[in-house]
């Protein structure tokens, strides 16, 4: 699929960016799942002119507006990004998207599980980056934890290093395409939620809600989709150490064609700021694309 602008993230920043870019006649597609937005499932009471309302209601109305303006919501996640314009994105359903410009509106992601043993064994078998640490698990046992595309990709990757790879996924949101890839690669799937990581001095096992105990050397916690920091680096943008992406007043990242808006650009993490930046990023990207043609 060839488009002008790919917006990564379908929370308030991404949706507002899609509305403004589409109204400026750019061909816009939006990646990500609205249910992954921090706004989904919360109430909003501090947004201009809007009484207490459910976040998901405002979000669905925003998505309808963006669709009416011409934006296409893909519902799939980005798993890889490359190129310097056009940018090429690999999606979790196996498809590929080529875009002249990209708006990173991925928000801030929850990376921690919050279970006993997770903090204690960080660096002693617990890792949040399978790509970084897979090499230390050659011939060992590994467990990947997570429900979405990043966990599926990591599980498939670990099978090339570990002697035994397990994938704990209790509410799978990864695409069938990626689940099949992980399973075909040899990852053993477990459908129960993790409750504790145990060991003496280092990780030795992970315990699941259904009572299963998996003996392992490593636990790779990979929640959500590919992180904004990884996508940014794929595109040549260096994030800050807190994973936020620095932008100027036009929501420009410093790399031609790459813009960012919303929580991913740093605090305040507020809907009002997200939509304000979304508007700016959408217009900046549309202007950029127009300048290329």
């Amino acid at each position, binding site marked *: 699929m060839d488009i002008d602008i790919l917006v990564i993230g379908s929370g308030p920043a991404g949706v507002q960016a899609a509305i403004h870019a589409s109204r400026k006649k750019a061909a816009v597609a939006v990646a990500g799942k609205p249910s992954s937005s921090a706004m989904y499932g919360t109430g909003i009471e501090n947004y201009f002119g809007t009484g207490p309302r459910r976040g998901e209601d405002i979000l669905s109305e925003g998505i309808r507006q963006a669709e009416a303006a011409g934006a296409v919501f893909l519902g799939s996640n980005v798993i890889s990004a490359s190129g310097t314009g056009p940018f090429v994105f690999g999606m979790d359903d196996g498809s590929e998207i080529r875009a002249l410009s990209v708006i990173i509106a991925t928000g801030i992601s929850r990376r921690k599980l919050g279970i006993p043993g997770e903090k204690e064994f*960080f*660096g*002693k*078998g*617990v*890792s*949040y*980056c399978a*790509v*970084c*640490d897979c*090499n*230390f*698990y050659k011939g060992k046992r590994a467990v990947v934890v997570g429900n979405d595309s990043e966990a599926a990709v990591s599980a498939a990757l670990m099978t090339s290093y570990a002697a035994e790879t397990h994938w704990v996924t209790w509410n799978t949101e990864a695409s069938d395409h990626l689940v099949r890839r992980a399973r075909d690669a040899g990852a053993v799937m477990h459908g129960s939620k993790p409750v504790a990581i145990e060991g003496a001095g280092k990780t030795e096992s992970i315990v699941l809600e259904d009572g299963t105990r998996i003996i392992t050397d*490593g636990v790779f916690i990979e929640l959500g989709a590919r992180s904004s*920091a*990884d996508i940014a*680096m794929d595109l040549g943008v*260096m*994030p*800050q*150490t*807190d994973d936020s992406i620095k932008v100027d007043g036009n929501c420009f990242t410093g790399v031609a064609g790459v813009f960012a808006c919303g929580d991913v650009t740093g605090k305040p993490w507020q809907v009002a700021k997200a939509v304000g930046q979304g508007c700016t990023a959408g217009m900046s990207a549309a202007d950029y694309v127009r300048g290329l043609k």
Partner: protein
Amino acid sequence: MVTELNESNFDSFVESNSFVLIDCWAPWCGPCRRMGPVIEELASDLAGKVAVAKLNTDENQGIAIRFQINAIPTLLVFKDKVLVDTLVGLRPKEDIISALGIQ
């Protein structure tokens, strides 16, 4: 200046400097690449106080095993040839300085 370490100069570097900070990293590791500029800054900020180096764990797996490194980025801190601290994960410069106990 950040010194590049490998199997042949690792021990002599640790032995010839009283306060040592070593950034263990690998090229495909995103958080390690984000740590890189922080380490460069630390090397210049702490010049004369702390000897700063980096070690590619992919090319020097023996050292990684010796110090039980299984997640990167990992920072190794040596004082008078003794490993006194191991800091795992990407963190801002201020956190590293405070972990080193430098005022």
